[in-house]
């Protein structure tokens, strides 16, 4: 039965500040299937994106191929620094991780605001939104990754057991990007310029990651900084595995573990702190 006692409140002009009780919400919460939801959100993104493109997934391949061609022409043909014959492969090893980072972080950052209709109406766990955005960018990366592996074989490099290292290092890398996207998407709800800051940073990062130059030309005083850049770390590990046919050095893997844990931890803390006020600001 509804308690009929509430009529007394109609003369109550007390402001919320005068009410000392902190807000308390007891609920069983959203008891859905998070993995099923995540899969559906990724599929939704994928379908929407590709249904509006006449060439479909070819677009995922054209961008890295064009970039690879241009960078090879400029830095191999015109400037003429690196003379290794596998230079296009070398560049692609850098482009695939970088492209994922840039597109996943930018769509992840705007994801909360872009999903306003959903966030304001349904009590789904909010963390799913930026994670789904990052993972659906991963669909492009899988296609580009297939291209990369195909090119590796075309250059006559043989797969070995070191290829298994690709799995853990990519899991670490995706975790790192998810952490960044969680934090950035939450901040973007309150400060809408965040997306432009992130876009600018990804442009800067293109030059600070050894995509078209080799790690060996970096002066010694900057090496430590590079090693702690998780994007650069993944690029180095990819080259170790695919071109040199070696497992990545342990120090690099440790750096990636640290980066993934720190980014995810900070991302979740920032997201959790800002989450209760999303509704008013989206």
């Amino acid at each position, binding site marked *: 039965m509804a308690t009929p006692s509430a009529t007394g409140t109609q003369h*109550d002009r007390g402001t*919320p500040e005068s009410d000392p009780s902190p807000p308390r*919400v007891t609920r069983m919460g959203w*008891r859905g299937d998070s993995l099923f939801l995540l899969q559906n959100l990724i599929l939704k993104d994928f379908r929407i994106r590709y249904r509006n493109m006449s060439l479909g997934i070819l677009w995922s391949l054209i961008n890295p191929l064009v970039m690879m061609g241009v960078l090879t022409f400029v830095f191999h043909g015109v400037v003429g620094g690196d003379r290794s014959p596998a230079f296009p492969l070398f560049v692609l090893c850098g482009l695939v991780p970088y492209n994922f980072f840039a597109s996943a972080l930018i769509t992840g950052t705007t994801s909360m605001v872009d999903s306003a209709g959903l966030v304001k109406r*349904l009590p789904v766990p909010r963390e799913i939104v930026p994670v789904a955005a990052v993972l659906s960018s991963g669909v492009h990366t899988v296609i580009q990754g297939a291209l990369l592996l195909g090119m590796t074989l075309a250059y006559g490099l043989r797969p070995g057991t070191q290829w298994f290292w690709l799995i853990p290092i990519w899991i670490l890398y995706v975790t790192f990007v998810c952490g960044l996207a969680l934090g950035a998407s939450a901040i973007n709800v*309150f400060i809408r310029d965040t997306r432009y800051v992130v876009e600018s940073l990804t442009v800067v990062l293109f030059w600070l990651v050894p995509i078209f130059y080799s790690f060996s030309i970096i002066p010694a005083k900057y090496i430590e900084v590079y090693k702690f850049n998780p994007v650069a770390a993944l690029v180095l590990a990819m080259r170790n595995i695919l071109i040199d046919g070696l497992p990545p050095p342990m120090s690099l893997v440790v750096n990636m573990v640290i980066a993934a844990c720190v980014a995810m931890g900070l991302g979740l803390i920032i997201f959790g702190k800002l989450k209760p006020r999303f509704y008013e*600001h989206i």
Partner: protein
Amino acid sequence: MSCALRFDRVSKTFSRHTETLLLRERLLEMVRPGKRSRFEALRRVSFELAPGDSLGLIGPNGAGKSTLLNLATGVAMPDSGAIEVNGRISSLLELGAGFHPDLTGAENVRVNAALMGLSRRETAERFDEIVEFSGVRDFIHEPLRHYSAGMTVRLAFSVAVSAEPDILLIDEVLGAGDQAFYQRCLEKIQGFQRAGKTMVLASHSSELITMLCQHALWLQKGAVMAMGPAREVVEAYRESAARPAAS
């Protein structure tokens, strides 16, 4: 658990200028804090519903009905007070949140079912039932942008009720379907009530509230004006609305 849904002195305020969201304003705000005025959307609202109760929310636009439902759903947090929810809650607030015009009806059903909290198995099991109830089977593999507004609402309503919630929240959504579908929705809602489900219905229609709800709560500018048996509260609300500018 004795209650399905309980609000205890729940207040919620919104700031008036939430559109100033750029860095410049944020920095200015740090220099000169506390310049925003806030308004109270809900003011110390208390009520308690036992399982099987139905409550109608009545009041003019901007009275706080939707805010109350949003707090109950859990998409918004109260500023003070306590909210207790026992059971799976599903809202028919603005149906079709998460629907996308480029996806087909079937694809939208799956995404929306997952959003509503259905598992993979439940979605597969209930898919036919959902499509059947919506009455848009012939168009289910067409993109949603070819649907009429009525068809979209029917599809969304069908997904929402398939979630089998313990507590159902409804907010003025039944308007867009045609008369036959409206009738089927009412039957479905009454079926929910017979099954002992709890319901909160926000509506401008006094008829709908007296027909579907035992209790009613009259909100005005965020405050509870009256609460009790639906017929009495609706009557009081009508009388006050008939008096021009009585406040």
